[in-house]
């Protein structure tokens, strides 16, 4: 069962390296020019060359992303709890939420810029706006699919709605919640980066736009790689938290 833990640890690295090698080979074999698709090696070299600037931009993007994401988690859980535990709120809020979410947030950035000026605030808000929806949906689904047997345990004790939510709703919805966090954090990155491309003088989004205007596609892809790495890092953090807090739901994996 606990076979080959080393392979398991190495797997992500192997697959990442595999992808890079494949990508490098494709670009070289088909002789794809760098302004269409640079090789990963070029991107990494150029990225290293500019590593100080990238670092500064990346820190900024990380900050805006996390700020927006944090708001999204709080807001998403509250709204998800409301939507998931009351039919009326579900009926009223859902179409609006869905409609809002079908809209590309990039179209709203100009409006935000008009109100909050260029830079950090619109990026945080965009990250928030783009990432709260999956949390709402999953938390609501987790609550709505709560087994009635478990709910009855609480109800038979005369528990209030809040009690039920806190004692069985949320714990039961945890796997759903974590699944949505993984989606949401990646979206939050997308949100802050696109906001930076629309109006900012700092952040990876700005860096990428600026690089692309100078035909420096390797630097654009270096920016993409940096975002990807930050996304993975955040994801892994949630993964660790998830494994600790939803052991019970994943108990079946011991035997596979």
């Amino acid at each position, binding site marked *: 069962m606990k076979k080959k833990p080393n392979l398991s640890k190495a797997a992500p690295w192997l697959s990442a390296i595999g992808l890079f090698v494949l990508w490098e080979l494709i670009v070289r074999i088909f002789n794809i*020019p*760098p*302004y*269409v698709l640079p090789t990963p090696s070029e991107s990494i070299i150029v990225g290293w060359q500019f590593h100080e600037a990238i670092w500064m931009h990346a820190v900024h993007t990380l900050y805006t992303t996390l700020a927006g994401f944090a708001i999204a988690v709080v807001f998403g859980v509250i709204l998800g709890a409301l939507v998931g535990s009351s039919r009326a709120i579900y009926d009223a809020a859902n179409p609006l939420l869905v409609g809002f979410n079908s809209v590309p947030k990039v179209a709203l*950035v*100009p409006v935000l*810029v*008009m109100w909050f*000026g*260029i830079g950090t605030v619109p990026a945080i808000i965009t990250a928030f706006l783009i990432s709260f929806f999956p949390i709402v949906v999953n938390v609501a689904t987790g609550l709505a699919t709560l087994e009635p047997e478990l709910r009855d345990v609480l109800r038979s004790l005369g528990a209030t709605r809040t009690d039920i939510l806190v004692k069985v709703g949320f714990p039961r919805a945890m796997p759903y919640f974590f699944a949505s966090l993984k989606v949401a954090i990646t979206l939050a990155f997308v949100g802050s980066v696109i906001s930076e*491309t*629309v*109006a*900012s*003088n700092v952040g990876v989004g*700005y860096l990428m*736009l*600026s690089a*692309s*205007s*100078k*035909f*420096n596609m390797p630097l654009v892809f270096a920016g993409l790689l940096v975002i990807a790495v930050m996304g993975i890092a955040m994801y892994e953090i949630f993964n660790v938290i998830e494994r600790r807090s939803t052991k019970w739901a994943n108990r079946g994996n011991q035997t596979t």
Partner: protein
Amino acid sequence: QMAIKFSLDWKFEGPAAPYLLAKKNGYFDEEGLDVTIDSGNGSVGAITRVASGAYDVSLADINSLVEFNASNPDRAMKSIFMVYDRPPFSLFMLKKSGITKPEDLVGKTLGAPVFDASRKLYPAFASATGLKLDDVTWESMDPPLREPMLVRGDVDAISGHYFTSILNLQAQGVTKDDLTVFQYKDFGMDFYGNGLLASPDMMENHAEELRGFLRGVVKGWRAAIADPASAIEALKEVDPLIDPALELQRLQMAIDENVVTPDTLENGMGLVKTDRMAKAIDQVALAFGFENKPTVGDVFTDIFMPGAEDRKIK
């Protein structure tokens, strides 16, 4: 009939109407060409679209092409036809900001997208007017944010194409009289502007078709200059959402300021003058900061140029 994919530099706006008119009037058909015209996303995209072979021909800023060649020397491309003999690069200020001459820009904030041609060439403007690069700070923003930010006073000045920003500002209720405009061409900067590029494959294997294409383009411009309203009609067919009056104005401005110039009246459309181009390359090299400057022959070729008669504007 040969199929040609043609990418514009920008969306379907007034200055794009002559090409659409050419197609509508069958000028390309006459040359045995089946031309598809797609909207573009700025010069950077227009250049890479052709460089990658996704498009056969595109319209793009020749100064950006110089920059492209500098970073991709082994895939350098050449412009084959100049459209904007005098480009619309400009800076815009509100009169009430008190800026009347370039020196007044010191310490001010300028807004534009990073990829805006006028912003990219600002170092050349600065050196031509004796400013230092760090005399101004730039705020980066999406194109449609520019004019509102100027009007609201979030920035002191913006850069942009003359015919784009002046009309956008008009839409915000700002008239020409409220504005101070520095057009780069009025400050001794004798650049060329947007021209047509062709893919390496086209240049190598389809010289005749290219020549035919260019003939069609000139015919389109000629027809548009003679009757701009008909060009706007052709435009409206492609994009029903345009405001015809506004685009007519934009087209007229492009014709008057950028296309119909003393040089083109004399020599017809398309050509560049070697000494003027060489000077422009010097300034571009300065603006973009690269050492090994290309020669004129490296960025422009007239081998596909139609005969002088076929290039006459009027």
